[in-house]
């Protein structure tokens, strides 16, 4: 069997996959818009109760990780896999840091008795139940994507170490970068919607 390789095709396929990801999150953003429209006041008050400094920190962490991701690709294409590895490892570290912060944030909320189906949450107004339902669903699905991203980043790390991807064959890392930027962009929308617009 011939070994077919088609870099343009791989890129196109990745963009198509990202489109489907956008629509996956799109469904949740529609739900958010409708429920926010129906409960503006309650959403306003609930958003103030979220941990804004931690949200800002996580935004910085994720934005920086996008930069290190881009640098990793840049150096791989330039033919210096060492630096590429370094920046890739930084991306991985920042991703883990993001999830750790998320874990802290969720834990504090759970300790306050605010989680889906919690008796103390159900005593509150219906709009607030919806707000936290959306909060957990959307940041949860996003967190899941970060987690999957970490897995892919680790595989890429391994591939660069084994010289399976290099300056001649960098498309897998570029596609990983595209995915990572998508995860970043989703957060760029989640952050103001949940933490800032009050």
């Amino acid at each position: 069997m011939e070994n077919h390789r088609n870099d343009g095709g791989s890129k196109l396929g990745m963009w198509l996959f990202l489109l489907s990801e956008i629509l996956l999150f799109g469904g949740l953003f529609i739900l958010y818009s409708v429920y926010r429209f129906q409960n503006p006041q309650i959403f306003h008050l609930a958003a103030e109760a979220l941990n804004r400094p931690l949200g800002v920190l996580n935004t910085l962490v994720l934005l920086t990780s996008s930069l290190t991701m881009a640098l990793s690709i840049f150096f791989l294409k330039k033919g210096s896999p060492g630096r590429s590895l370094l920046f890739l490892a930084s991306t991985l570290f920042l991703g883990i840091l993001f999830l750790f912060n998320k874990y802290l944030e969720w834990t504090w909320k759970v300790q306050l008795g605010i989680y889906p189906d919690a008796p103390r949450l159900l005593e509150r107004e219906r709009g607030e139940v919806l707000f936290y339902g959306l909060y957990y669903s959307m940041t949860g699905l996003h967190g899941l994507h970060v987690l999957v991203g970490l897995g892919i980043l680790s595989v890429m790390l391994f591939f660069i170490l084994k010289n399976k991807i290099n300056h001649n064959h960098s498309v897998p890392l570029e596609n990983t970068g595209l995915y990572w930027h998508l995860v970043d962009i989703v957060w760029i929308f989640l952050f103001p919607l949940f933490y800032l617009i009050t």
Partner: protein
Amino acid sequence: MSSFYEDEGRFRGILGWIFSTDHKRIGLLYLLAIFAFSAVGVLLGFLMRLELMAPGPTIMRPQTYNAIFTLHGVIMIFLFVIPGIPAIFGNFFLPIQVGARDVAFPRINLLSWWIYMAGAGLAVLSLFTGGGPVDTGWTFYVPYSLRTPVNVPLAVFAVFILGFSSILTGINFVTTTHQLRAPGMTWFRLPLFVWAIYATAWVQILATPVVGITLLLTLMERLAGVGIFDPLKGGDPILYQHLFWIYSHPAVYIMILPAMGIISEIIPVFAQRTIFGYKAIAFSSLAIAVVGSFVWGHHMFVSGQSDLASIIFSLLTFLVAVPSGVKVFNWVSTLYKGSIEVSPPLLFALTFIFLFSIGGLTGLFQGALATNVHLHDTYWVVGHFHYVIFGGTGFAIFGALHYWFPKMFGRRVGKKIPYLAWALLFVGFNTLYFPMLILGWEGMPRRYYDYLPQFHSLHLVSTVGSWILIAGLILMFGHLIYSLFRGEKERLENPWGGATLEWQIPSPPPRENFAEIPRVERGPYEFR
């Protein structure tokens, strides 16, 4: 040159199939799985018709009936008609028709078959675990699906997994069409089947994730009680319906567009005449895909959405009928002054036009706001849907099976039995489904286990129709299976005189389709 059946690759025997990345083998893997599931779906439909043969309990209890109509819908829609044509014939013929050796991502193609099988396996598992078979109807509408004790979580998860498979197939086909066309295969030299699969693939990529997230949220609702769709917790069930139909209406175009592609292949070949209005047909596929994505609200005219929304959705629904009409007129015009040979494939294609027209025109009644109030949730809708999807997609699949059989299997199909099977299918189909239109018009609600005595005679006629139809199915598939093993060997590359690329290579095709990638110098329907 040896065919793709002989070349085994890395593994031998059955492993050489289930781990093969050859698009033709994957197409046949899908064929086997999909027709096996459709047989189960037919059996369930048969049981439903038996139950409805007479008023009152006939052969089963109400709860069993609810489970059976749900399973019939879930199996037929998610396991048969949605993957059907793209996964079987798209996989087998799209790469050949664009002049490629395989799809753009052969391994992802194999993965999508495995994911399909996993989803199907989970769907089967959901019958025997948790609270037993789902009884919500194939739409899983909340709030009922949140309250019913049956195994909704596993069933919706299975459908979510199946959606994943559909998206991967779509990505593969769009990329293949963009990247792997042979030299000289310009966009307007693509066979119309490729155009149809291409348009469908976009719908698969863009619409499926929306139902994915909807089902995921339903799952979370059941497992964690998130509350987004639960009216007790402030959620809005109408939003569930919106999100569900944002996918599930375009999904009916996933079901019918590829079928239209098949008809556009068969008709010019058996009229030996260039297709009339090539560009109109190609662009109408895209138009259906685009406009069809904005008509979902016509499922919700009586659900409590705003009147303004209903009016807009009704208008768009009428608009989406236009490109379908364009296709029908073009097919009929292609036949004009052609040298028509009514072989079984053409017979099925003509039947498609007839039955699909009935299906399409009855759809307009539902799209009109006032009549919809009367027809909503009645047997009219069941009749309409089966005319479009069975009369349309089903008969197109039958046509495709007879048309491509010599190419896929290297054997010929007999000359007489397909006509007899067609007659049984045609008579049985109309006897089964036409009474449903009348029943619905007279007010018989769908999904009911029991009915008033005045509906008895039409239900009886319908049930008798199901027997004739099934006799036709058994005869047709029995004959095809017989031909598979005992049929005359097909030695010709091009038994029908087709002009698309699959007819320029041996039957069955060799492992990598083309010894040398062809240089395309003419259109797909230039016969002389």
